[in-house]
């Protein structure tokens, strides 16, 4: 599909909305009362980073960026599992 100005503008607006969501998640990451809150915030932030990479791929036309998005999704899942086990064992509160 050719990149019409409508599509480019929609991608930029979506990027702005996504940035607002990332900012709210980051506030939760900074002030979240428990460690589990912060882990949830990091998980959501990483998913949003995947979305941001997809938007950058759409804007620049670089399909290769989707590889990085997949890699981020893989790594963050393992990190969340590891943090959940750490919390469950009571190693960190």
């Amino acid at each position, binding site marked *: *599909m050719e990149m019409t100005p409508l599509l480019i503008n929609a991608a930029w607006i979506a990027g702005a*909305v996504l940035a*607002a969501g990332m900012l709210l998640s980051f506030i*939760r990451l900074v002030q979240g009362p428990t460690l589990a809150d912060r882990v949830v915030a990091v998980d959501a932030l990483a998913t*949003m980073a995947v979305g941001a990479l997809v938007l950058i791929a759409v804007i620049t036309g670089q*399909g290769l960026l989707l590889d990085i998005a997949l890699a981020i999704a893989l790594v963050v899942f393992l990190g969340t599992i590891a943090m959940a086990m750490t*919390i469950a064992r009571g190693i960190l509160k």
Partner: protein
Amino acid sequence: MTLLVAAFLLVGAFLMFLTGLGLYRMPDIFTRMHAATKGASLGVALLLLAAAFVFRDPMVVTKALVTIAFVFLTAPVAAHLLARAAYARRTPLWEHSVIDEGRDHIAADDQPDQRSSQNK
């Protein structure tokens, strides 16, 4: 077609924004997790679908579909484990919560390794 892709991009990004809003506004960790997991999963799925429509390249479409499947498989698993860990650690619920069914069933010492060591 272009309108459909633009709508996918905007709705996906808006769902991500709702995720952030839910994380910021919800009162305790379990409601926050409820907002974060579902919204982020569907948002990233819509964005990836839009990218698949834009590129029309078999490699990119496959990668997008694989990423969607992976996110949809792993996000509930991660959220479940994290919620269970937080609940077992007696993370306080919202003070207006009306029901708490797991208190008698999920405890902090309900870990398989610790239970097997106690049985010896």
